[in-house]
């Protein structure tokens, strides 16, 4: 038996659309909900064409009501549907935080599996696109500290589609973070058909013996540039794209750090209580004796994400990553 698998050259945001379309076609229970997701196709066009194809009943423009529609989606999810909820920007998830924290993530545990919430919350996140304030938050750690939800964050078109489909098929709630800055920054061949990328698994993007560089989402291209430049200087890094932030890929992290003994973590979010510190704790737990230098974190500051005139200062740059790579090497 032979199948020819076609591919399309897609941007990350197109791959997200493709993932939703694939699942809307496959399962009648899949719904897309949120502000402006219908006729408008989303403020980033992530849902472009979906309402035209699947109708107003399956691609639903909701009121401006994050708690209301996330809560309603929970009600739909416990009653047989598979809602994909779009939060227009991650910085507007806060009004829905109570619904996610006390309900979406806990209902299965509370009811010993009697009810569950197979819901995906999609949210563009991050700075670097000159958006107005509050539109640029990257607060994944508010969800990795929330038992009962998985947190996924692709950096490439291929992973975006595969992880989104895996998230939709996951029987539990998933926060699916989409790096705005990567939405249209590159294209990749993406299979036309359905496929999944496993949740909980990172990916090694470059192989090296000297330093482990760990990044996710919008920081992957930043780390990648740094790693490339270091190759020019004869320093070879393992570059790991975490892809899932909860649960972390402990094995991949440990394996790499045990090889290199030196780690740089690149995180867009505020330094304190960020996911980088979870990575540090994984290394502490698994690889203490292998460490040859203190772990370096290149992160956003403990300041609000600044207005866009200053956001380039806030965002980790390849230069800052390089500085940290050099630091762990010369330690």
């Amino acid at each position, binding site marked *: 038996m032979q199948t020819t698998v076609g591919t399309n050259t897609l941007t990350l945001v197109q791959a997200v659309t493709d993932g939703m379309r694939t699942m809307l076609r496959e399962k009648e229970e899949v719904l897309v909900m949120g502000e402006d997701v219908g006729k408008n196709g989303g403020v980033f066009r992530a849902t472009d064409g979906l309402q035209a194809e699947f109708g107003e*009943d399956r691609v639903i423009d*909701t*009121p401006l*009501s994050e*708690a*209301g*529609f*996330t*809560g*309603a*989606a*929970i*009600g*739909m*999810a*416990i*009653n*047989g*549907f598979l809602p994909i909820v779009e939060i227009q920007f991650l910085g507007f998830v806060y*009004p829905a935080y*109570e*619904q996610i924290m*006390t*309900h979406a993530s806990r*209902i*299965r*545990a*509370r*009811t*010993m*599996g*009697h*009810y*569950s919430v197979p819901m995906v919350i999609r949210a563009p996140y991050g700075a670097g696109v000159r958006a107005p304030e509050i539109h640029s938050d990257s607060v994944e750690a508010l969800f990795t500290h929330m*038992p*009962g939800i*998985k947190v996924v964050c692709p950096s490439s078109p291929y992973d975006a589609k595969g992880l989104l489909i895996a998230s939709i098929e996951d*029987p*539990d709630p998933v926060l699916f973070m989409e790096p705005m800055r990567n939405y249209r920054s590159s294209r990749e061949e993406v299979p036309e058909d359905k496929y999944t990328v496993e949740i*909980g698994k990172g990916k090694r993007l470059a192989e090296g013996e000297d330093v482990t560089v760990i990044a996710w989402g919008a920081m992957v291209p930043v780390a990648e540039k740094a790693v490339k430049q270091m190759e020019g200087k004869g320093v070879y890094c393992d570059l790991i794209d975490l892809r899932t932030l*909860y*649960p*972390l890929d*402990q094995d991949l992290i440990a394996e790499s750090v045990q090889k290199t003994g030196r780690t740089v973590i690149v995180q867009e979010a505020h330094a304190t209580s960020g996911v980088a510190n979870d990575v540090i704790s994984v290394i502490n737990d698994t690889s203490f004796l292998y460490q040859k230098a203190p772990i370096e974190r290149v992160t956003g500051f403990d300041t609000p994400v600044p207005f866009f005139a200053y956001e380039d200062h806030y965002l980790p740059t390849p230069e800052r990553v390089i500085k940290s790579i050099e630091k762990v090497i010369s330690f």
Partner: protein
Amino acid sequence: MEEQFPMIQWIDEKGNLVKEIDQELITEDVIRNMYRNMVRIRTFDRKAISLQRQGRIGTYAPFEGQEAAQVGSAMSLRKTDWLFPTYRDHGATMTFGHSLKTILTYWNGRNEGCVPPEGLHIFPPSVPIATHLPHAAGAAYAEKRKGTDNIAVAYFGDGATSEGDFHEGLNVASVLKSPVVFFNQNNNYAISVPIHKQMNSKTIAQKSVSYDIPGVRVDGNDIIAVYTEMNRAIDRARNGEGPTLIEAVTWRYGAHTTADDPTKYREQQESEDRRASKDPVARLELYMKQAGLWDEEWVTGIKEEVAQEIDLAIEDMENLPPADVNVIFDYVFESPTWTIEKQKKDYVAHMERGDQ
């Protein structure tokens, strides 16, 4: 607004009919059932308080005084409908068919208390106030989308109307035309906060105006009124006419929970006065006597019956195997993440070494 949303009553405080009853809806059987259910839940409630005092269950939220509201509304449901209660609505859930043992287990701090009987759609009590109103809107919408005529009801208190989720739930439901009834029990207090500090409006029913949905204010201690209006709202929902907001004006006689001391914030004499004049169970009794439906023997019978049922439930609850530590870990996700697996393994090993 009080004129626009007058308090609907069928039986007055003396047990007199003030309006013609819908005989087809409110048959003699229904009335007997109402009485029986109210006695049943009141007996349960008192028993639960004494269990708490004896340390056999944890903090408990009593509802005595609100029986007509809870029984009248829950009796209007079909078994295939959805019920979203708060912590004070187990009078409604047990009327709907919830297991008494399970309810007690909930108040004993165990997850088993969140699992409804097979086939019944009862959500675990919503503790964060008003958060379940959007759930009810969504679950009801899902029924509509499946093409059934099942509906959902969400129970909530007067205080709950101040939360954003009340507003968002009703707005979303009204836009989606969800078949849902928002059933408010206005017992005049949110813990210690009296309604006039909770809201500026004189009624809760008038809050329906914001969503252009029907709003109804009923005497929540008059079970005939509650049942009749609840049936109307449910009919509308089943017929595709969308949500209704019902305000059932009532009173809790006792404390907010067994951890609360109401004498701190109100004259308990007022509760006693209300009991004397407005009690929902006594009121139906008066009516039944007038209507020739009263039978002492039958009453004695049901009282014995429900007491036995409750004793049995307590026994069942207390015979449950001890709380199982695995419950903490095994249901967070369908398949546990490595983090939880490892934490469980470490903890269980620690317990087994007995050094816990």
